[in-house]
């Protein structure tokens, strides 16, 4: 589904990504973790072309992301993305947030788009909030709406960029529950997250990054039981401490 091969990216002399390669198969759930500044968010944003990269190749569902001839908008319409800060559109009601891209990008009818949006809103447990505006919801609720908004586009895979990092601790689980359910239904997912409990529960593989490199790319069992690199061992020791 997603093939990343030898991708490198730099800002001037600073290398953000160095020769990163991995693949994500259909139905797989990959957790990307690592210390701040290790390039994990940048890597995931390269997958749908929000960040350009200088060398290497990323193929999503047979389409090359880096190719200048690729219609990125068309590709992105089917690659869902969830952001750290939710990024709902504040001037639209929840219903309109769910419907607008379906109407403007996929060309669905407004009624059809609203129906679909409301169904997904119900699925994330927020049907009662359809008429509200994003500013009237809590962070956890906003993030669940954001996931529903991405799902409304019938994505072939979902990218999560630290979806729980901006949330109050007590709201983390409501978002993780939705993500877990999604993973169990067979959605292809690539998640940048520090939630190791989530990784242990649903991930097929864990990618560990440091200084722009993919240091580990292993099954979750192997990663948690026996990380090969010293850096990953240190990282796990620190975050699994409590």
């Amino acid at each position, binding site marked *: 589904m997603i093939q990343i091969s030898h991708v490198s990216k730099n800002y001037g002399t600073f290398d953000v990504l160095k020769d990163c390669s991995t693949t994500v198969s259909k139905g797989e759930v990959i957790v990307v973790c690592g210390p701040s500044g290790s390039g994990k968010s940048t890597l995931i944003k390269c997958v749908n072309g929000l960040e350009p990269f200088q060398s290497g190749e990323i193929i999503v569902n047979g389409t090359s992301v880096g190719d200048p001839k690729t219609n990125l908008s068309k590709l992105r319409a089917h*690659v869902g993305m969830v952001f750290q800060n939710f990024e709902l559109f504040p*001037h639209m009601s929840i219903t309109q947030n769910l419907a607008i891209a379906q109407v403007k990008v996929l060309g669905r009818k407004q009624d059809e788009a609203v129906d679909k949006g409301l169904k997904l809103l119900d699925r994330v447990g927020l049907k009662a909030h359809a008429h509200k505006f994003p500013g009237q919801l809590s962070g956890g609720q906003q993030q669940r709406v954001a996931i529903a908004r991405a799902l409304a586009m019938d994505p072939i895979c979902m990218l999560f960029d630290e979806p729980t990092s901006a949330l109050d601790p007590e709201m983390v689980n409501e978002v993780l529950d939705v993500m877990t359910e999604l993973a169990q239904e067979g959605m292809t997912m690539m998640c940048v997250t520090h939630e190791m409990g989530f990784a242990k529960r649903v991930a097929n593989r864990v990618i560990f990054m440091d200084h722009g490199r993919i240091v580990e790319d292993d099954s979750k069992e192997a990663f948690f039981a026996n990380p090969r690199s010293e850096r990953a061992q240190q990282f796990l020791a620190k975050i699994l401490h409590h």
Partner: protein
Amino acid sequence: MNYQWNWSIFLQPTVVGDTTYLGWMFAGLQMTVMLSLSAWVLALLLGAVVGVLRTVPNKLLSGLATAYVELFRNIPLLVQLFIWYFVMPELVPQSLGDAYKQSHPVQQQFLAAMLCLALFTSARVAEQVRSGINSLPKGQKNAGLALGFTLPQVYRHVLLPMAFRLIVPPLTSEFLNIFKNSAVCSTIGLLELAAQGRQLVDYTAQPYESFIAVTVAYVAINVIVMTLMKLLEDKVRVPGYMGGK
């Protein structure tokens, strides 16, 4: 002070006999409102386009937009007015210049004054549009793009609706400014409100009444503008955001 107040002067017929002095005032008020409103509409449209262009990734477009803003923002309004009125007709192709010079003098003055005010103000509007767009979280643009919107769609549906809401208060100032700046246009002979006030002084020797009337008229215009903009601000307020309910 030995001043003879005479408020009834406004009801007296003018020396020329066409109307009363109050009629002159109304003619001036009309001219000021027409000039300012038409210039404002043009300034908003141009300013929105230029402001957006200043924020696009294309270096050439954003560079051109920056040059536009700096040009119209950094030359005094009065100088710009003289350039539009006296210099431009000589610089444009001769047929166009001739057509301009053969039109009615009031039309000539109005056109020059309107373009001058519109372009001067559009540079300032552009700066506000740009700052409005730039003050939105960067993730908003990415969120729009990630849903499959093209860049123009992101501007149309995501960035501009919020950016314009954010800049209603500074835009109100610009809207007020354009009415006040329009007084400069009396220097090319356009008989707007301030010019009518001065004409009244010349004909009636009642300077206090004349300029009090002019002042009241400007204040009235601006109170109306402020009230309308406040209503607009309340109407477009987003629930749960920036003091909205």
